[in-house]
């Protein structure tokens, strides 16, 4: 537990000192939403219908920037290796990083919601539930995303490799998040939201456990 707290403290310091990067990613997400709205055209109905998909696509694209940059400071002067040599627990390091990435992505998702409402006229009164879906969806992106970001951190083409590895894996997260958000915005007469949330919960349970176990193998020299 002390190791996890140390890892979270380290992430807190890094995120605070690199907060300008978060705002740059937020601008990227906003721009993506704006461009998607141009692609659809002026049809208010179509905009509203696809709003959830665009929200999650913007978040997915932004997540690759957040995730790949989250390991830049770790590899620059081999800081991560230094912590491992100090007997830092790889699992604690993973969960510290994954939680930091999760919170960043969730915050970004929530910041994009008002922009989605303005651009697509796609609001919902059930903000509490929407926040829950964003938290679950961004958790589904951050756990495998953190593991893959660690894998490609030393690679030359990391900005290309990360989406290539991550996107196919997070298809269930994207699908479930879009469906759950869409049902929340457009209405859910058949009561399907719960099953999509269940899928997100299962995905998160599997990947948060599995990635924590695998992280040590990824970051240690083999």
């Amino acid at each position, binding site marked *: 537990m002390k190791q996890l707290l140390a*890892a979270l*403290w380290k992430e807190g*310091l890094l995120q605070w*000192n690199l907060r300008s990067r978060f705002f740059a990613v937020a601008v990227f997400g906003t721009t993506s939403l704006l461009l998607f709205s141009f692609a659809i055209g002026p049809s208010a109905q179509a905009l509203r219908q696809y709003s959830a998909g665009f929200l999650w696509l913007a978040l997915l694209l932004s997540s690759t920037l957040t995730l790949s940059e989250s390991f830049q400071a770790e590899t620059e*002067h081999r800081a991560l290796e*230094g*912590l491992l*040599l100090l007997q830092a627990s790889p699992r604690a390091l993973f969960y510290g990083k994954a939680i930091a990435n999760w919170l960043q992505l969730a915050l970004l998702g929530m910041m994009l919601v008002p922009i989605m409402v303005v651009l697509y006229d796609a609001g919902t009164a059930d903000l509490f539930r929407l926040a829950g879906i964003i938290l679950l969806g961004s958790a589904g992106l951050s756990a495998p995303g953190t593991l893959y970001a660690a894998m490609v951190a030393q690679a030359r083409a990391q900005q290309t490799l990360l989406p290539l590895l991550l996107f196919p894996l997070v298809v269930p997260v994207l699908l479930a998040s879009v469906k759950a958000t869409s049902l929340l915005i457009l209405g859910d007469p058949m009561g399907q939201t719960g099953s999509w949330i269940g899928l997100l919960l299962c995905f998160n349970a599997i990947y948060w456990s599995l990635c924590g176990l695998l992280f040590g193998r990824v970051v240690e020299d083999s």
Partner: protein
Amino acid sequence: MIEAHGISRRYGRRWALIDVSLSIPRGSTTLIAGSNGSGKSTLLRVLATAIRPTLGSATIKGHDLVSARQDVRESVNLLGHAAYSYDPLSALQNLQIAARFLEIESNETALRPLLARVGLEERRHDPVASFSAGMRKRLSIARVLLRTLPVTLLDEPYANLDAAGFTLIDDLISELHGRGSTVLVASHMIDRIAPICDGGVLLESGRIGWTGSVSAMAERIRSIPDATPPRTEQ
């Protein structure tokens, strides 16, 4: 204390270490010498468990480097080429992170004496990104000083340091020697370090070329026409 049997390490298609066998007694200070690219850093990184040997095995205090990696890390301190620091954070914050992971006192009061010892007390709140190479090295030394362990591996400890930094390293090695720590120093500063070393190992293209006393090793290096001459202190 340190026993290595046939350690080899490959990077891609190039062998950086080939069949290196060593026996370093407890409490000794040993110089690892050799020209650039001879495998000194790789050997120390293997012994510190930063990288695994491709072939061969080694033990430190009886713990195998591969199968008991965490036990080895309990005994070994590495001052490497890399600063092991976070550029956006201050010197103090970097030390605090290390202290927290080591589960030792991490407040400013506890860490200030360490920073003062390495000459970074005045700059402790500055981001490491603004530091020179020598200052980063000093921060790495402070990190090594956070804990006293039975084995300390120093990879080019004098690199990037000024005259005061040289004295800092001399004092550190003497202090570790006095405490009975086993010290391995990879350095080109043979003349400077010879008086405090008990023995030397000369690496040539990844292989052990010679072992014995440091003074005899210096003579041998000078006698090799193609070898990079050992750098002496200014």
